[in-house]
């Protein structure tokens, strides 16, 4: 018997899809904001921190960038309980995303800092600012502006990577797709619809980040 496509059956589960989109958005928001915060600290540590901190952050960055996100997620969710650390799946998923984005973004922000002319640091020092003040008030913002496109791309990549969080039963969009497919046996239709939704989410996220960039760096627009 021929396989008859049936896209309308997916519509019966619109509420499940909407919940999935909401959870994906939540994970991305948490991961994005906290991940960038971690990265700013990491980039500072790598450029201006003491040697031991530089080594630790360096090791963290290398570990995360050279292992798959899936394994990082499984390690946090299934592995940590053996050490007594039991994290529910939303916390585990968010943590994994923060750690993942943090590592990649540390490198991106560090590149931005490295491209800052030495004159900026010297000018700040000549105004009797401490290195931390120079970092905060003089060099960070231009560095962020410089690497904002690359950072935005990385956030979109992590949002797409969040699809994997469905594997620990975080109820994101992929989990919703799997759930629907398990009930109506329409795997291809469901996955196609979900893929198109992800594409739209990625486009929206890019626009949003562009807007955020404009807001944050408007005063210094060149």
């Amino acid at each position, binding site marked *: 018997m021929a396989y008859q496509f049936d896209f309308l059956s997916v519509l019966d589960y619109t509420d499940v899809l909407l919940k999935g989109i909401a959870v994906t958005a939540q994970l991305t928001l948490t991961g994005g904001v906290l991940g960038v915060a971690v990265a700013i600290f990491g980039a500072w540590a790598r450029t201006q921190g003491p040697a031991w901190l530089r080594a630790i952050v360096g090791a963290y960055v290398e570990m995360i*960038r*050279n292992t*798959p996100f899936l*394994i990082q997620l499984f390690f946090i969710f*299934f592995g940590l309980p053996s050490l007594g650390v039991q994290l529910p799946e939303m916390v585990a998923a968010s943590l994994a995303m923060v750690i993942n984005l943090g590592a990649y973004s540390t490198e991106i922000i560090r590149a931005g800092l490295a491209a800052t002319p030495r004159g900026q640091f010297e000018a700040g020092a000549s105004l009797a600012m401490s290195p931390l003040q120079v970092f905060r008030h003089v060099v960070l913002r231009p560095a962020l502006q410089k690497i904002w496109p690359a950072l935005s791309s990385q956030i*979109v990549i992590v949002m797409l990577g969040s*699809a*994997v969080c469905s594997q620990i039963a975080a109820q994101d969009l992929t989990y919703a797709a799997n759930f629907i497919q398990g009930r109506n046996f329409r795997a291809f239709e469901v996955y196609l619809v979900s893929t198109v939704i992800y594409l739209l989410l990625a*486009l929206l996220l890019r626009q949003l980040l562009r807007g955020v960039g404009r807001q944050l760096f408007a005063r210094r627009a060149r």
Partner: protein
Amino acid sequence: MIDFTLWDIVRNLLLAARWTVLLSLVAFVGGGVVGLLVLLMRTSKRPFLRRATWAYIEIFQGTPLLMQLFLAFFGLALFGVDVPAWLAAGVALTLWTAAFLAEIWRGCVEAIPRGQWEASGSLAMSYVQQMRHVILPQAMRIAVAPTVGFGVQVIKGTALASIIGFTELSKAGTMIVNASFQPFTVYAAVALMYFALCWPLSQASKLLERKFHAAHRH
């Protein structure tokens, strides 16, 4: 049931890691070939080819790799093609790799000064000849570092093939976890094996970047 010693765990993981390496190579080589074709079309003079490949790249860069794997797996089979998990994973990863490599290489090609195009054009070279003899050789020097760096992403991408049932390193890990009841040890071992595969490539990429001094040439 049999008890799993640390050696049992490591041995079984290493055996599964062969498939990770194989799938990575297939995706990287296949993705390179397809990526080159996509690159040529993306930079061609015909607007239709440029737009079609732009769409292809947007789709594969703008959707999760996991979804691409699911679609390859369930979708291809519906069109009468019998697709085992390794083949679906291979196809999906190849197409995904090709999209990213094409963009990386496009960046490298566009970094070549227009003067090179004009000079070779004035020698009555066709587009393909220009690419082959003048542009690509120069672009390749710049491209080596990021291409090698992307190899790391490919290896990490193969981990998702476990979700559609292909028994590579990650899948072996989850199976052994439930047979041995040692999730911390097993996942740590899996992570270390991926690290052992990826880190040399990352370092090579950094080395090549410095050697060819690519970013600061122009």
